[in-house]
């Protein structure tokens, strides 16, 4: 007759020759139930600190594009953050598209950073990805760095006309927030 168990299971704390007892099973079940209980109590407490429904409801904003002529940019506010909305000139668009991915610190094609059919509009979060200052470049009188986009005065990071980082110490491109065109002259961010 084949052995159904080749070796007896030893529970922690038991020596050889002492089997797993009912007590071990009960201890395991009790501790597991208690752990589930603690988790069930801890989760609502922790989750209560996550953004509440009213904060989440304020998380979309509409921007009217009509007053922004080509070459100009505005700063909108979304979720407490500055959003650069730039109406790019054809030269700026071409400059952005001509850059090869190998030249980029954080490679991304310009087409991935704008909406099809609306590539004259660049919408990026206006916070430098280095340590969080707001880069200069929205006003025509602002320094825009060597790449025609934005220049961060804090530590010298430079961004191009697609908002991509071209000179550090910033490690990443200016992020593109989720947005959509409600009409040719209105976008909704978030």
């Amino acid at each position, binding site marked *: 007759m084949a052995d159904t168990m080749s070796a007896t299971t030893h529970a922690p704390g038991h020596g050889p020759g002492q089997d797993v007892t009912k007590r071990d099973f009960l201890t395991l079940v009790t501790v597991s139930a208690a752990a589930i209980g603690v988790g069930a109590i801890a989760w*609502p*407490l922790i*989750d*209560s*600190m*996550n953004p*509440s*429904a*009213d*904060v989440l409801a304020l998380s979309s904003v509409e921007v009217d594009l009509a007053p922004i002529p080509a070459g100009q940019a505005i700063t909108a506010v979304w979720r407490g953050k500055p959003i650069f909305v730039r109406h790019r000139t054809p030269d700026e668009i071409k400059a952005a598209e001509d850059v090869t991915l190998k030249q980029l610190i954080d490679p991304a094609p310009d087409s991935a950073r704008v909406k099809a059919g609306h590539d004259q509009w660049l919408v990026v979060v206006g916070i430098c990805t280095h340590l969080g200052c707001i880069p200069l470049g929205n006003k025509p009188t602002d320094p825009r760095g060597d790449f025609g986009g934005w220049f961060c005065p804090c530590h010298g990071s430079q961004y191009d006309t697609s908002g991509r980082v071209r000179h550090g110490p910033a490690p990443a491109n200016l992020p593109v927030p989720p947005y959509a065109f409600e009409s040719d002259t209105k976008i909704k961010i978030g």
Partner: protein
Amino acid sequence: MAGLHKSEIKNPVLNWIDSRLPIITLMQKEYGAFPTPKNFNYWWNFGALAMVILGIMVVTGIFLAMNYTPHKDMAFDSVERIMRDVNFGWLLRYAHANGASMFFIVVYVHMFRGLYYGSYKAPRELLWMLGVVLLLLMMATAFMGYVLPWGQMSYWGATVITNLFSAIPLVGDSVVTWLWGGFSVDNPTLNRFFSLHYLLPFVILGMVFLHVVALHITGSNNPLGIDVKSPQDTLPFHPYYTVKDSVGICLFFVVYAIIVFFFPDLFGDPDNYIPANPLQTPADIVPEWYFLPFYAILRSIPNKLGGVTMMFGAIAVLFVLPWLDLSPVRSARFRPIYKWVFWLLPISCVVLGVVGAHKPEDPWLTIGRLATLYYFAHFLVLLPLIGKFERPLPLPESISQPVLGGGGPLPASAVTKPMEKP
């Protein structure tokens, strides 16, 4: 090395900590091996239960405070925001509000246990008095907490209770103005109540620590009311009473969960869902249920200062209880008269509670006056008299003796053991 505690812990890291701050040794001594009478019944669970509820109240309170605004223009709305917009805010609020009710239920049972089994008698008089201080702190905390939502009952309850202090001769009105921070219950009042409501639970925590220390000096009482005679009469607190308390805690959570999830407004007054209006008094101003007996006593006396004095007197009489009860025997089990008379006290408290919920008109007013009379007579007249003239039953020799035996029935010539000296 000089100055280090000699720790018995095996684990080197824990040993290092314990030899510099022996909390592990302390916990093992006070909650691990601590010799506890082995004949506890479930009425002894309620102290530990109260500690658990205090923890629940502090934690839910801290998370509520992250979203609450203590300004009269925003308080009510901030509570509604918690209920509707904050993730699990409804649960935090209902757990906290109903936790207060559960806290009082548990503490009242805990106190009645003490009254029945003589846990307030020597050498535990100070332990009892610390407990009464804890009750007062709880009542202050609960009162201020109820004001915070700034509903109609919050505002008007605050107005009624703070106005009581004007009964103090000479300085009464100044005291009330000082409490209010103004000329009526208003924003300064709300703001300071929030501060104090956050503070007092930590004072309670400190007092609970003293309460447990005092308990550990004398050791716990037990249902027989007799002293522990030998280690044979005891069991180590862990695992016996940690497990028994866990059973009680689980049962408590079932009841608590039923209330919080299915009847969350059971104890509440609907008027408190109306924002406070200083220009409109509700038809019935009623405090939360746990204050109703004291409210009834207050309104039984037709004189303002008299009513206030009697209301505080109801607690004051608890302070001096150890010296009012003249019985040399602790537990009601061996007190044939007190055993029955005891029950008149919780009955009168319930009657007072019902009276407190009604308008102070007949028949409730008369019933309330009689119940108030009984309440004070119970402590000031009955306890001393019963204690003095009652013939107690013979006490067992020890806690173990009725269980472990000891030679069969006593011979006819045997004399009952002399009463234990308190």
